[in-house]
């Protein structure tokens, strides 16, 4: 049996009460996935990322959403938010808190949203993420029966972040999940949505998530993807964004966890004045592999994009950054800036970085750049000359390197958590977390 067949076998075992049109879509996804098969390194988009660990894996489907309460408290973000929790892809009512949503704001598990209003919700699903995008998107389309639907009526402003927590358990039998996230932001609506991937330390599951974000005129969406899963977890994600006139999409793609993490982020700037900001960070160690493929399509004149990805790589980790900016013919007076800077903490760490600009208009402002290097030795000396030992000096400078991206993060809870995680991972006895706290205290005083 081929790998795709083995995966799809799970589909036939699955209980189903789908309406016919959903079933048809599943079949289309399955057929497409079977035809494409898993990507190999011969595929340009997967040149540096080997997915055999996924293709050769044996993943069941979870059937319950039980999770240790104490561990849940320890892992969740300490944030006042509307919270929706999936455990191995299964909705947990017990761990979710969705009470008190303002008028015009819908946040629901996908299964429930579909049963309540198939037409409205189902119509939007898959509009941005077609089954041809990648084998994984097709696979997700075949399986997805749970996830999150966020719908904002025109003018609705959500007072608190919408927090989606996706937990992965250390199961005896590894599982796969194919969550689907749909965010429909009506005209001039505003929301912050967090996708947080976390779980038990030994979890070795496969998460294959697809997120679609539609922004109507003037909508503003801050989207966080915080990846903190176990260093044994496998994760593939694609995020598809469609922006109308004057909308703004801010992406914060923060990668700390996972054995293999691949994220595709695609934004179509379809209306004048639309603006996208991509902020990315990956901090990898051991044998972690993190691959970020980003694409901005400037389809309309007077659209703006600004991308800044920073990578810190230790041990034998491997990072991939592929950032493409595409400017359509006649999309004049656009501005597109892109930067990727990487810091190698070890001789054996590897980064493959490829910025690409494809421009078919002539009145544009574009720049891109990629740098990879080590810490500034003069700065290491300057710190040591004050009595700070070398590992600590390097730790401080590493934290400084990620600071530029973290300064953009508007949710303090996340910025502090990532800074602490970065600090805690740095070599040697070390108390940068304490320093971070002190700095915060001085600021507040």
């Amino acid at each position, binding site marked *: 049996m081929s790998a795709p067949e083995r995966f799809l076998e799970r589909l036939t075992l699955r209980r189903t009460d789908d309406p016919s049109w959903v079933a048809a879509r599943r079949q289309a996804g399955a057929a497409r996935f079977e035809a494409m098969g898993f990507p190999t390194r011969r595929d340009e988009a997967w040149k540096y990322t080997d997915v055999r660990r996924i293709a050769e894996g044996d993943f069941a489907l979870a059937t319950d959403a039980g999770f240790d309460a104490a561990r849940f408290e320890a892992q969740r973000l300490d944030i006042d938010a509307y919270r929706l929790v999936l455990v191995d892809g299964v909705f947990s009512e017990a761990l979710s808190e969705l009470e008190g949503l303002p008028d015009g704001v819908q946040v629901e598990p996908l299964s429930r949203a579909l049963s309540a209003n198939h037409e409205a919700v189902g119509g939007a699903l898959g509009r941005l993420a077609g089954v041809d995008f990648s084998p994984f998107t097709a696979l997700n389309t075949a399986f997805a029966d749970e996830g999150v639907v966020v719908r904002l009526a025109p003018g609705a402003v959500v007072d608190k972040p919408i927090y989606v927590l996706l937990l992965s358990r250390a199961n005896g039998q590894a599982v796969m999940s194919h969550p689907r996230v749909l965010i429909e932001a009506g005209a001039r609506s505003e929301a912050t949505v967090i996708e947080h991937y976390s779980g038990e330390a030994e979890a070795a599951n496969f998460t294959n998530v697809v997120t679609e974000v539609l922004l109507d005129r003037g909508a503003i969406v801050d989207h966080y993807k915080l990846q903190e899963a176990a260093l044994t977890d496998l994760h593939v994600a694609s995020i598809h964004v469609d922006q109308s006139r004057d909308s703004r999409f801010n992406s914060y793609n923060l990668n700390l966890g996972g054995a293999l993490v691949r994220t595709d982020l695609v934004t179509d700037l379809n209306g004048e004045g639309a603006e996208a900001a991509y902020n990315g960070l990956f901090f990898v160690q051991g044998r972690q592999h993190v691959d970020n493929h980003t694409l901005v399509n400037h389809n309309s004149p007077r659209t703006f994009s600004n991308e800044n990805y920073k990578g810190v790589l230790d041990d034998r980790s491997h990072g991939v950054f592929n950032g493409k900016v595409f400017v359509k013919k006649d999309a004049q007076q656009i501005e597109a800036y892109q930067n990727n800077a990487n810091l190698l903490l070890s001789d054996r760490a590897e980064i493959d970085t490829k910025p690409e600009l494809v421009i078919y208009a002539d009145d544009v402002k574009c720049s891109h750049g990629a740098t990879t290097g080590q810490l500034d030795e003069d700065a290491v000396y*300057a710190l040591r000359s*004050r*009595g700070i030992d070398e590992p600590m000096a390097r730790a401080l400078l590493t934290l400084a390197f990620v600071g530029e991206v973290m300064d953009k993060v508007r949710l303090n809870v996340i910025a502090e958590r990532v800074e602490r995680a970065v600090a805690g991972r740095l070599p040697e006895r070390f108390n940068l977390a304490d320093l971070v706290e002190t700095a915060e205290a001085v600021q507040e005083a």
Partner: protein
Amino acid sequence: MLEVKDLHVTVEDKAILNGLNLTINAGEVHAIMGPNGAGKSTLSAVIAGKDGYEVTQGTILFEGQDIFEMEIEERARAGLLLGFQYPIEIPGVKNIYLLKAALNAQRAARGEGEIPAPEFMKLVREKSAEMKMDPSFLQRAVNEGFSGGEKKRNEILQMLVLQPKLAMLDEIDSGLDIDAMKVVASGVNSLRSADRAILLVTHYQRLLNHIEPDRVHVLVDGRIVKSGDKELALELEARGYDWVLEESAA
């Protein structure tokens, strides 16, 4: 406190110091003066363990300990600090991080625990006020976007927090206007005490109007050719270096 004996130093095979001798006792302020290229900055850089200097002969003892056996950070923790002529910018590293990490490293070396946060905050706020630095500077990256004068004040702020036994200040007066000079000088003067020493490296006498030295040395061609009290600095200001050069050649 500091004993430099027959120190020979080369930089890229070029001899810079040629048998320098210098003794500094606790409670003293020494000034090293001399024409450009005499090797003034080399001495303090070697003591602070800066890269690129090769010691070919001689010893430096700090409180009886051979400093060449000590790592850069060990020297600093033992109480040897150099205020740089050109302090570098360290983007992203907040001043407050540097100060706290440095202070705790020093305390750990003495076997003391970490400084409690409230005590630390009180200390840095007081010392910033002494240096007429707004507390917002503590949140800023070390020297990033600072003016020349702000960088120099920041060097002294580090000294005030870390309280070195021997503070070495390399051309701390360069690029300072008169007001900034007064602030810097008053910071340095507040470090004076019976159990501490200060070594000033300067080209001009004007700094010494504000920080009065006990001993003044003239460094020429990598050697101290003349030593005296503060009057010597005034004489150098009035007469230049030529007469010392002639005297030493004779």
